[in-house]
């Protein structure tokens, strides 16, 4: 893409994600999820999204609860110790209002590695003998979605072959995980798109390259040349990034290494109150609709944000109460 300014607003970023988009995200469970953009997608009433994720979490629970999602393709959803499972997904699954497709965690990781590397599939040796490989449980196949009409949806869920090189036996071939749009929540992005992640980078580099369009929502947009003084600390080169958005606390209530911790109270409250659709709608009415990101932060309030703020020395907060003590 050209080097005209890549900077856009949160609203504009959400508009890039059309109805029916195959969408993926940065982060890991309750860390570095692009929540501010997720809220904006809900405000804009996005429909029929196909989420494809290495693992899932609160961001997807919000999108699913709000009715934005047609297909959820991943391996896990929950809120770690702040909520045992994904109650919104569970409800929609029970009511058959969503298509769910399960792979294992390593399989999802390797699927994104394949897509990021221009490989249509990759071989792995995990989860043999489990119901993840049960051919009856190819849910997208059951829904008639593997007919080739969407070139990013593989025609099969799995293929198996014997290792012909070393005689190592049965190999599972998993298809590349291809996405239309990846949305990344990170610490810093340069004006030309160079991404510097703090802490574990999870599967962000793979997720970025697996998508046709990458939007980076950063805590800070920083001068490009500052990042280029230490190229080894950067994780994604600028030419892989199409749009950038500056949005402090843009991953709240999930955590951001070096910036802020997970807001466990917020997640606990979300999990406790959104088991029903009515509960979800009330939560969304209070925390999403009619607000923008500034209003959301204002509603959270300065003391709460300061409590979550990470120590610059330790990269996590020393102020939050995490346990019974």
């Amino acid at each position, binding site marked *: 893409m050209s080097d005209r300014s890549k900077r856009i607003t949160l609203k504009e970023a959400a508009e890039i994600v059309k109805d029916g988009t195959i969408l993926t995200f940065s982060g890991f469970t309750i860390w570095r999820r692009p929540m501010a953009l997720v809220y904006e997608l809900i405000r804009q009433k996005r429909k029929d999204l196909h989420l494809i994720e290495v693992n899932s979490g609160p961001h997807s629970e919000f999108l699913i609860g709000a009715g934005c999602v047609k297909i959820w393709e991943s391996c896990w959803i929950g809120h*770690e*110790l702040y909520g045992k499972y994904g109650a919104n997904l569970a409800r929609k699954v029970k009511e058959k209002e969503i298509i769910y497709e399960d792979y294992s965690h390593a399989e999802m*990781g390797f699927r994104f590695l394949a897509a990021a590397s221009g490989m249509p599939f990759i071989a792995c040796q995990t989860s043999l003998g489990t*119901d993840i490989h049960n051919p009856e449980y190819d849910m997208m196949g059951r829904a008639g979605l593997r007919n080739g009409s969407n070139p990013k949806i593989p025609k099969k869920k799995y293929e198996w072959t014997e290792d012909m090189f070393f005689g190592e036996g049965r190999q599972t071939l998993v298809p590349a995980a291809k996405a239309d749009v990846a949305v990344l929540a990170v610490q810093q992005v340069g004006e030309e798109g160079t991404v510097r992640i703090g802490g574990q*980078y999870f599967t962000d580099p793979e997720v970025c390259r697996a998508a046709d369009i990458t939007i980076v929502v950063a805590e800070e947009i920083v001068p490009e040349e500052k990042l280029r003084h230490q190229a080894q600390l950067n994780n994604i080169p600028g030419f892989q990034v199409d749009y950038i958005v500056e949005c402090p606390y843009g991953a709240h209530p999930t955590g951001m290494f070096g910036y802020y911790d997970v807001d466990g109270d917020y997640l606990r409250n979300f999990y406790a109150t959104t088991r029903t659709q009515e509960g979800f709608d009330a939560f969304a009415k209070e925390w999403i609709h009619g607000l923008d990101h500034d209003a959301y932060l204002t509603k959270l309030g300065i003391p709460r944000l300061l409590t979550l703020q990470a120590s610059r020395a330790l990269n996590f907060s020393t102020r939050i109460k995490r346990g019974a003590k």
Partner: protein
Amino acid sequence: MSEKDFAKAGDFTLADLMTVAAAREVNDHEVVFAGTGMPMVAIMLAQKTHAPNLKLIFEAGTFDGRPDVLPTSVGDPRCEDGASRASGLVEAFSIAQRGYVDLGFLGGAEVDEYGNVNTTVIGDYLNPDLRLTGSGGNPDINSFAKRTVFIMVHEPRRFTKNVSYITSPGWRVKKWPSGEFISRKELYGGAYRGGPSAVISTAGVFRFNEDTGRMYLDTYHPGKTPEEIKGMCQFDLDISRVSGETPLPTYDQLRIIHEVLDPEEIFLPKVKKA
């Protein structure tokens, strides 16, 4: 009382007992793959006692970390303190698939007598009673590691004849497309490294027969009897090889758990003294 003495009843919780039992499964110098919660406390307890040279791998991408402060999740910034390397999930699973991992600690909602574990769904997968979290890395760690230890709540419905869905492979698993059960070793071929080596439940510690892959009771927790535990399983539990009572925590171990590792009581509440 000395630090090395076993704690008296009332001085420890069931969770303490299970944590100590889990820590005992770790040998020094091993590479251990651990998830969030009690397993993480157990491994860090082993690291601070008999296994100072174990190497911790966290699924999200941290290798050989030595956290000062207990992480609440494998994605937590606290994981990276003192780590040899911090990267991502693809590297973690690539390393695991390459065979570096000795031991994995996992959880489960249901287990059958062959160690097949379900964390995906209660009821029929196509018409579920309750959708759970899904697999996460459970089947992967269990497929790649040489040994796997499961930590579970013990209820009869959870120790079941047939799990609703095999999320994580035990010693007899399904061969697709037919779904007939065959031995794990046969199915995995060149990728075979081992399998479930223990289940630590709220009732006892269970292991698996080397030939048949069937579960047997190794030790029972204080206050339980082998017969009682057999009655808490829907399958016919082998209690012929019981070695005794599960060893109790020492005061030293309890001090490390509650004063060093989890003083905030995130995963392990302290005993409430009247």
